[in-house]
């Protein structure tokens, strides 16, 4: 019954590796997001997709590449991981772009060593 799910919950990897995080929502929403929460708990949007189309790209390094195979899924692939990529990454969804309510997943805790 999970509304927005992410995998994995924890990810520990070495610098320079490539990794992916997956997100799925079963709410029937049209819009999905990726957020990054840093060590100071600051939550900042990275990307937004509406019906599989990219609508927001917040000056994120091009090592980060989102992919939306369908409107229920939004994955995040990160190339050449750096120490500064360590953070918690949240997926979210809403009915419409910046809809009234955004529903967040449980987060993926990424640690780059």
């Amino acid at each position, binding site marked *: 019954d999970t509304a*927005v799910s992410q995998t994995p919950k924890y990810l520990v990897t070495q610098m320079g590796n490539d990794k992916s995080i997956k997100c799925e929502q079963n709410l029937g929403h049209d819009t999905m997001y990726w957020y990054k929460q840093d060590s*100071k*708990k*600051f*939550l*900042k*949007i990275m990307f*937004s997709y509406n019906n599989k189309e990219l*609508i*927001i790209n*917040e000056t994120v390094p091009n090592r980060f590449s989102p992919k939306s195979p369908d409107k229920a899924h939004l994955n995040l692939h990160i190339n050449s991981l750096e120490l500064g990529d360590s953070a918690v990454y*949240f997926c*979210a969804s809403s009915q419409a*772009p*910046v809809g*009234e*309510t*955004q*529903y*967040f*997943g*449980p*987060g993926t805790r990424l640690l780059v060593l």
Partner: protein
Amino acid sequence: TQLLEQSPQFLSIQEGENLTVYCNSSSVFSSLQWYRQEPGEGPVLLVTVVTGGEVKKLKRLTFQFGDARKDSSLHITAAQPGDTGLYLCARRNTGKLIFGQGTTLQVKP
């Protein structure tokens, strides 16, 4: 940039105490949302306020939107350990949500 400043940044209180956290901006915003994020979880929307001077209540939580729509406050009455978490305010801006840096609340039994 139209930043949201939250205060205090950290708050540690005893069960049963009252508290207020604030969210301020130098800009007027059309609406403001409050989220609570429990440890190890994602943020969950508590309320949206849209009208200047609006007051909304959610059990022991009272949310107020400033008359000039530049600030908001969240008051918790008789705090309980279950209120522990990170409280985030957010505003909508050109198709995205902008979050404040949050207030971390710890309520000790």
